[in-house]
């Protein structure tokens, strides 16, 4: 073929793939595809104000004894045990944290177990002991449960679904829609530890890591913060989809803009190195023991001080602020002085080729 036949003007395209006909892995990644699934499949069927608020937990008002915070979370992590935690600790902390993020004191959990035929009893026992230990740390009780066993090959060892209920501190209306212009954004510590620790534990990355998952119950941290200030407007734990997705949710819910300062965001060197190698961005990596708080600027110093006195808030820092510009979007001021948009995670996070 000669050079002249090269069609350099040819516009080429591929038909779009919407993945509306079947579930693909991206629907479970905590990003925009998951949101679309909720919008299309769940909200229209179940619609009610508590669900539509779109927070980590639902605030309900069953009677005269104050408001309840209710949440549920399904856990399918592999491997079941990873540095810093396991599926049991994850299942307790995930729900405790979601319940706490409305400014509530988590009280009771329930747990549903889906067990695969052939699961070693010893594995189950280790998981249960870990759940109890996490529940004690959080100060909650696991008061009901259910067990189902499925055939070999129909589950990945074991899956756990937990639900939790807590009492919302009176007078609080914490939620994603409550962010206000001029508020500052506090992050309780480094990002990406859980996601990278679990990825490294799968042994597929070809490198060893000393990194541990940050999985932890944050309810005591939340309580300390609430003791310090009444001006905490949003609390959210940035799990799947990472800090970027969580802040995008808050920007949309509050219809305000968020400006992040890249240099202020703590990232462990191991997390950064793994992300560099794999082409990931720490902003999109899951955390299981971190929270984001949107608080009144005048109280930020006091709240930070209170956080620094707790086990899971020692590294808390201010990472950004809320503005009325670029509503519904998150911007990042880069280390070299430019600004870019930080979008929500789209579908599944995929390693880049090079």
């Amino acid at each position, binding site marked *: *073929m*000669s*050079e002249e*036949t*090269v*069609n*350099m*003007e*040819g*516009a*080429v*395209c*591929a*038909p*779009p*793939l*919407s*993945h509306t006909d*079947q*579930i*693909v*892995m*991206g629907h479970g990644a905590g990003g*925009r*595809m998951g949101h679309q699934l909720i919008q299309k499949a769940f909200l229209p069927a179940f619609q009610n104000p508590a669900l539509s608020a779109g927070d980590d937990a639902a605030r309900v008002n069953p009677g005269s004894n104050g408001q309840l915070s209710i949440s549920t979370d399904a856990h399918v992590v592999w491997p079941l045990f990873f540095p810093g935690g396991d599926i049991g600790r994850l299942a307790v902390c995930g729900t405790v944290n979601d319940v706490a993020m409305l400014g509530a004191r988590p009280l009771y959990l329930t747990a549903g177990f889906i067990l695969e035929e052939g699961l070693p009893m010893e594995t189950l026992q280790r998981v249960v002991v870990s759940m109890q230990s996490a529940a004690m740390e959080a100060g909650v009780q696991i008061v009901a449960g259910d067990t189902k066993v499925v055939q070999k090959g129909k589950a990945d060892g074991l899956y756990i679904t937990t639900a939790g209920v807590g009492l919302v501190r009176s007078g609080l209306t914490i939620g994603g829609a409550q962010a206000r212009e001029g508020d500052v954004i506090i992050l309780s510590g480094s990002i990406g530890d859980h996601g990278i620790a679990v990825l490294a534990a799968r042994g*597929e*990355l*070809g490198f060893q890591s000393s990194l541990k998952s940050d999985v932890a119950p944050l309810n005591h941290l939340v309580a300390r913060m609430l003791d310090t200030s009444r001006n905490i407007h949003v609390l959210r734990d940035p799990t799947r989809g990472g800090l970027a997705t969580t802040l995008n949710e808050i920007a949309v819910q509050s219809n305000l803009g968020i400006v992040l300062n890249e240099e202020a965001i703590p990232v462990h*060197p191991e997390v*950064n*190195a793994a992300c*560099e190698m*794999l*082409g990931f*961005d720490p902003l999109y990596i899951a955390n299981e023991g971190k929270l984001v708080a949107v608080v009144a600027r005048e109280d930020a110093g006091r709240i930070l001080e209170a956080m620094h006195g707790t086990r899971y808030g020692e590294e808390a820092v201010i990472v950004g602020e809320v503005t009325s510009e*670029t509503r519904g*979007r998150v*911007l990042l001021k*880069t*280390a*070299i*002085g*430019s*600004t*870019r*948009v*930080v*979008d929500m995670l*789209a*579908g*599944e996070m*995929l*390693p*880049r*080729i*090079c």
Partner: protein
Amino acid sequence: MKYVTEYRDAALVKGVIEEIRRTVTRTWTIMEICGGQTHAIVRHGIDQLLPKEIELVHGPGCPVCVTPLELIDKALAIAARPEVIFCSYGDMLRVPGSARDLFSIKAQGGDVRVVYSPLDAVNLAQANPDKQVVFFAIGFETTAPPNVMSVLQAQRLGLKNYSILVSHVCVPPAIQAILSSPANRVQGFLLAGHVCAVMGYWEYPSLSEKFRVPMAVTGFEPLDIVQGILTTVRLLEDGRVEVANAYPRAVTLEGNRPAQAAISKVFMACDRKWRGIGTIPMSGWCLRPAFDEFNAEKRFEVESITADESPLCIAGQILQGLKKPHDCTAFGKECTTEHPLGATMVSSEGACAAYYRYGRVEMNQSMQS
């Protein structure tokens, strides 16, 4: 991080940008050839900091974006077979073929796995003797050494159940095609540092001479990129036609000779279709006949699969640097990273995807104005 943070130092980057500002006297159009550089430029907002005289255009250097439709269709046909474990770099799972993508195949029960290295796929073949393991060997020169090593390793191990589906492309023929186009606007090139780490840059002086275009071997960190731009601008301003190495900590003129030897043992040059551009003669690599037994196209008899790409988006012009992503009416509307219409939106290294993810504010403002 050692050896990285130094190259993201804001003061150093700003210093080089100041130097570019002092050096430039007129407008210049410079193409970064590599998708990794496009990603870094947009992620760090480097283009915002440059003087307005410098226009960066994004080249066809994203291997995921330029992999042709019919090869994706072949991959999908192979991956759907019950006896196959289909291994790929993560990015490729999202690339739409004529009707489906690898995600859909996976959802339908196909065994599609993301691996980080083709040698992991060889290990899978060893561990699963009753399965056929296929690796989707795409990429520029950078990924060729591990891909050919996987074949040599499988040969050494005597594996009969490992093969690769090859869609390798090379940078120099792409530059040649871009510069040969009557519509070309590119006056200088940032050469892809990782490609040159493997291949050296001895292939480029003749191209530079032939088309009278200066080039600079460029790295991937912000400081590397602005250094590459400064080097190119200096060459342009001085009217010098040469290939400079602005990435000497990783690249030598001759490159990695053992890697080049391994590549030429396993691969040979061939015509290759580029999604969005068309066929560029002798622009890719395929397996030598001696390695036919590792050729997935032959093993699974998918050579006859062809696909016509329909002219719905402007990815072709974007890949050639003739248009910017937000020149496209579909950008950010019908075409998003979740539902890519074209090659450049498909990969996180694609120009449209990089713009969509990091630059939507700029895009929206320019659309409103």
